[in-house]
């Protein structure tokens, strides 16, 4: 009987998820035109400093072990926050790219395809990076490199700007904060 209850609850949750997804999908299609405003510009330079291995070495050399662990945990939390914003921006850009795929213009289509590929790659890398960050929080002494995320985000920035320019020359799409 317990097994039946577990299976019934799982099936009900699954059905609810499918129905919610279906409704949110139709809502997303109808509002895909105004989502560029949901992008939160990200300070790439600050993130670059945060993931700089030289900074990490410097902190490791100059702080005592306990202090270093506390500081490193804070830095990892900040990294996670940056990566979450980057992943959210990538999600918005995927939606913008998907909407732009319907364009009849070949260059816009190609730019949209490139943007979607870069954004998907970033979202995948962000997922793995977040997993690594949460593991690293348990062992702050271990070395950690988030540089692939940074370069991925920069590529995404380029693709987003190109697509934005092709679609709406007056409205730049920025996913990195102005310096």
């Amino acid at each position, binding site marked *: 009987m317990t097994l*039946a209850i577990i299976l019934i609850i799982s099936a009900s949750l699954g059905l609810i998820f*499918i129905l919610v997804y279906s409704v949110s999908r139709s809502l997303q299609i109808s509002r895909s035109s105004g989502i560029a405003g949901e992008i939160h510009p990200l300070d790439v330079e600050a993130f670059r400093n945060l993931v700089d291995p030289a900074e990490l070495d410097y902190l490791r050399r100059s702080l005592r072990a306990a202090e270093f662990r506390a500081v490193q945990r804070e830095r990892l939390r900040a990294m996670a926050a940056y990566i979450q914003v980057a992943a959210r921006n990538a999600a918005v850009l995927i939606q913008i790219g998907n909407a732009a795929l319907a364009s009849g213009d070949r260059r816009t289509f190609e730019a949209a395809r490139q943007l979607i590929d870069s954004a998907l790659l970033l979202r*995948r890398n962000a997922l793995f990076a977040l997993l690594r960050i949460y593991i690293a929080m348990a062992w702050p002494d271990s070395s950690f490199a988030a540089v692939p995320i940074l370069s991925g985000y920069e590529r995404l920035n380029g693709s987003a700007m190109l697509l934005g320019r092709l*679609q709406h020359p007056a409205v730049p799409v920025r996913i990195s904060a102005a310096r």
Partner: protein
Amino acid sequence: MLQAHSLLWNSLWIGPNALLLLLGGVIWARGVWRKFPTFLVFAFVSGFGDLCVFYADIAPSVSPVSFWHIDWASLLFESALKFIVIGALFFNVIKPYKSISKLGQNLIRGSGAALLFLAALTAGLSRTDSPVRLISGAHLLEQTVFIVESGLVLFIFVFASFFHLRFDRLSFGVLLGFGVSACEHLAAWAILANAAPSAHGRTLLDFLNMATHLSCVLIWSYYWLTPEKRKTFPDRQKRPPTQPPSDPPSTFSGGNPKDHEEAVNDWNRELERLIHQ
């Protein structure tokens, strides 16, 4: 009314399967089956198989043992085809997205293996609801198939939701039908295989299963037979094509497309420098 072999019972058994065969015929005649050939095979095999089981159920010449053999055969063929359709559908969805297609393929294979293991474990833990192995085995097989099927469909929805992948309308409709059907049938077969309901309870669950099957066939019919609505892009239409940008940045000074192209190239050069610095 809610009795086995009542008019409603017979209608709910025959109706959805006849409709599924009809749907298969229509998509064959219209030539739209090429978008999704495996679904056409599924529609014909599933519809025909279930009608054979119905005939075996009512025909006095078919013995109970033969009925269960026919039920097993139909179930095995239909299940194999369902997994083929779901697999084809997933590869259809991820094919355009090169950067995650490898990840998607690995994940769905891993999920399939994990679900199969989970389903086998659940079948091992389930108590048999009938002393006849042929009957209890069929119930456990139904439960196993629906655990794997609902798990795979949910995986595809979660994967698409996480990466914001765009389903084409047809793939979404087919998957929605499979998802609703698999979740409801899983719950029903979990009760049938584990909770030993009364005869009337079994009949009610059969009605629920058949009604859900009808709903799913109607969902598939809607997505296969109705044309996709053309999307409009309001913000592209708001601005007349000849109107210049309201607040042009310094690098975009005029309405000449050549200026825009050069400006985009400038932007790209700057970005390339930023990436490589």
